[in-house]
């Protein structure tokens, strides 16, 4: 039974203590990748085969439960190589920092709880068997013998297993407060002491089995709770480390890769095309274009050259840049954003979970009830302490929150397991409950609803000749517009024209010579034409009139399904983007948004979310950019995709591991169901108490009744929770 609980529902979401411990022991190069899309035996062998074939890889092992692969390799193998290799066979992968997967005190705690659970389970089963004999009518010497054997098994087992409750209760009592562990510890201790006394006196009733099953069920709840929390914590740590921060510093003639923390103001940093700005700074050398979409939501690339100011988080597109550091580490604009987040977060922490609310009512009530029972029976029996104490203990045992202790953890474990299989990682313990209350959804555009990758819109408008020339030029560049243009043209079976001396002019475009004429593909200002309001690139052949290629952002997979499904659930939808109004409006109309805001600054986004919250709405914010972080933190609950910047992921409660947005619609449904199950569970526990408490108060409670009430309620609650899977 113990093994069952350990192995089954929670494992689907939690990293086991041993797994983490093992990782920390290994000192050689080890790469950890998160694989959100693996799901079957064929995936395991495909991934492992592909990775083992790569040069320098010693071994690769997939953990399907945690959806990750750990690779042991030579020191020169990088995570990027592995991610590229997996992308070839169609698996999405994200780097995890193995350093943060240290075996911490948390994991030792998990193993310790499991040990205690096993001991309690073992003792409970044995004592229960002995008790069956007593309930069946064993008498006199046999009964005493069985009670004594029970005592010998139960007392050491309780002393070992129930320690977590005792410790926590003692800690709270010292500061003169009450929590759930106080009635629990009191019930366990009183029941053991009472039973021992009865056994010595040769009495009829001993509650050893009740004390043990109480310990066992509560430990089970505690263990599930621990695992959900542990994964929440480790997920936050691991994901924070997804983006390993390094920079290339120019030291004399050499480029040295250093951690960002070691950079100082005035250092020169080289940023390659495709690289992300590690610092705030000023361009010293080179020309290029910058993708600012993560910072501002703008989709169109922005030109940069010497003396231009760049901010951390922007992506360099075409040419290598040398940047002088103006602010590093905590002074960068990236970190100033974190202050906004910290301010917004404090409001979120005020949320009181359902479990805390229940405990607040429950803990004082139980004590009062059992104390009243004691006083009442003292009067009724004319001062018979033994009977009064017996009844008081029975009340305490029967009302004890066995089912309450399981009610929340069992549901959260089942629900987060189910969400994990859909590719969602719950980072915060109360996120599910908050998600269930949501009635307004605010989306970010760039990178969230769209992929942040442009797609050519007006392919049909061009002559074959122009397309052939454009394709030939575009093929030579890694600029996102060029890549998109080239791939669309190729799909339309356009053959590249034969162009000589192709040259990329970083920051401006590409030029070449075709049939003796100079051709250019690039920015409007460079070609010498007027730029349109949309994202576009221009082609000029010789001195002909330039032609315009218009691009629009591609929708993320599952975006329209997610929006449609949320709308069908009656949510108010809102789109807030930092992008230009034309692009935002067309997308909002296409997806069916009622409300949209364009050209929003990060402050505007969080202000808007706050305004909605003040008006009484429970806001779900879905966003990925740095400009969304403050809004993500301010919202009632927030979701960000795994492709988001780490700052955004840290600020959000739920992370979407896959590329597809469609699980969003299910998530609110699952969360609602989970909250409903939690409430049902409280109802079930209360119903059991409503029946059992009067019996106990009237003094009819035997150990058999206590055992039945306790096991039955715990099992009903667990089964009810499992319906979620």
């Amino acid at each position, binding site marked *: 039974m*113990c*093994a069952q609980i*350990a*192995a*089954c529902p929670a*494992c*689907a979401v939690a990293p*086991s203590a*041993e*797994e983490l411990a*093992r990782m920390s022991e290994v000192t050689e190069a080890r790469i950890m990748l998160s694989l959100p899309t693996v799901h*079957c*035996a*064929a995936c*395991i*062998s495909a991934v*492992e085969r592909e990775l*083992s074939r790569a040069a320098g890889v010693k*071994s*690769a*092992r*997939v*953990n*399907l*439960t*945690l959806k990750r692969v750990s690779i042991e390799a030579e020191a020169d193998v990088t995570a990027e190589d592995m991610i590229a290799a997996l992308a070839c066979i169609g698996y999405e992968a994200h780097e995890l920092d193995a350093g943060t997967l240290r075996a911490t005190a948390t994991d030792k705690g998990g*193993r310790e709880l*499991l*040990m205690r659970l*096993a*001991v309690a389970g*073992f003792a409970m*089963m*044995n004592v229960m*068997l002995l008790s069956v004999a007593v309930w069946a009518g064993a008498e006199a010497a*046999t009964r005493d*013998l069985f009670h004594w*054997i029970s005592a010998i*098994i139960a007392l050491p087992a309780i002393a070992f297993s129930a320690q977590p409750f005792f410790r926590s209760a003692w800690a709270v009592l010292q500061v003169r407060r009450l929590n759930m562990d106080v009635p629990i510890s009191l019930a366990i201790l009183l029941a053991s002491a009472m039973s021992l006394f009865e056994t010595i006196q040769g009495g009829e009733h001993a509650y050893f089995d009740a004390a043990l099953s109480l310990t066992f069920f509560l430990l089970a709840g505690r263990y599930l709770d621990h695992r959900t929390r542990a994964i929440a914590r480790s997920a936050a740590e691991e994901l924070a480390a997804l983006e390993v921060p390094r920079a290339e510093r120019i030291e004399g003639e050499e480029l040295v890769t250093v951690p960002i923390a070691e950079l100082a103001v005035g250092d020169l940093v080289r940023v390659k095309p495709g690289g992300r700005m590690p610092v705030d700074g000023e361009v010293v050398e080179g020309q290029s274009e910058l993708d600012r979409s993560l910072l501002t939501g703008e989709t169109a690339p922005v030109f940069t050259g010497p003396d231009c100011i760049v901010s951390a988080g922007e992506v360099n597109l075409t040419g290598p840049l040398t940047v002088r550091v103006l602010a590093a580490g905590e002074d960068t604009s990236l970190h100033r954003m974190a202050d906004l987040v910290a301010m917004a977060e404090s409001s979120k922490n005020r949320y009181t979970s359902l479990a805390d609310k229940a405990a607040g009512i429950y803990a004082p009530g139980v004590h009062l009830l059992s104390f009243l029972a004691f006083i009442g029976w003292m009067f009724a029996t004319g001062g018979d302490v033994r009977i009064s104490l017996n009844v008081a203990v029975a009340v305490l045992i029967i009302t004890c929150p066995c089912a309450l202790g399981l009610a929340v953890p069992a549901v959260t474990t089942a629900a987060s397991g189910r969400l994990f299989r859909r590719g969602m990682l719950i980072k915060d313990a109360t996120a599910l409950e908050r998600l269930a209350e949501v009635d307004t959804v605010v989306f970010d555009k760039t990178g969230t609803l769209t992929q942040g990758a442009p797609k050519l819109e007006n392919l049909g408008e061009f002559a074959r000749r122009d397309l052939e020339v454009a394709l030939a030029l575009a093929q030579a560049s890694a600029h996102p517009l060029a890549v998109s243009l080239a791939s669309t043209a190729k799909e339309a079976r356009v053959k590249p024209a034969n162009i000589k001396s192709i040259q990329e002019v970083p920051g401006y475009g590409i030029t070449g010579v075709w049939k003796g004429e100079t051709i250019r593909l690039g920015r409007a200002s460079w070609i010498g034409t007027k730029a349109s309001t949309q994202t576009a690139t221009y082609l000029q052949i010789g001195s002909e009139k330039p032609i315009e290629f218009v691009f629009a952002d591609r929708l993320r997979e599952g975006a329209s399904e997610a929006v449609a499904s949320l709308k069908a659930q009656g949510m108010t939808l809102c789109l807030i983007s930092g992008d230009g109004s034309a692009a935002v409006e067309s997308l909002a109309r296409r997806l069916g948004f009622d409300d949209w805001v364009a050209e929003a600054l990060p402050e505007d986004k969080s202000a808007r979310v706050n305004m909605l919250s003040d008006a009484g709405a429970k806001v779900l914010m879905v966003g990925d950019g740095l400009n969304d972080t403050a809004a993500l933190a301010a919202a009632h609950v927030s979701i960000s995709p795994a492709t988001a910047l780490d700052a955004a992921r840290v600020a959000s409660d739920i992370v979407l591991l896959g590329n597809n947005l469609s699980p969003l619609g299910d998530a609110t449904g699952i969360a609602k169901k989970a909250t409903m199950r939690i409430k049902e569970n409280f109802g079930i526990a209360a119903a059991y108490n409503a029946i059992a408490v009067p019996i106990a108060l009237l003094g009819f409670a035997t150990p058999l009744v206590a055992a039945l009430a306790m096991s039955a309620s715990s099992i009903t609650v667990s089964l009810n929770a499992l319906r979620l899977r």
Partner: protein
Amino acid sequence: MEILVYLIPISLFLGGLGLVAFFWTLRAKQYDDPEGDAHRILSDEWDDNPRP
């Protein structure tokens, strides 16, 4: 009823054996990847790198 003198210690010993076995599985890291292990057994490929 003298039989209890044997039966109770025997049953306790057997139960204890189960407890020890559980501790062993815990230490042998058998709960690392229950889902993966369930699927791996279906794979007809020879596992060259079985878990230590």
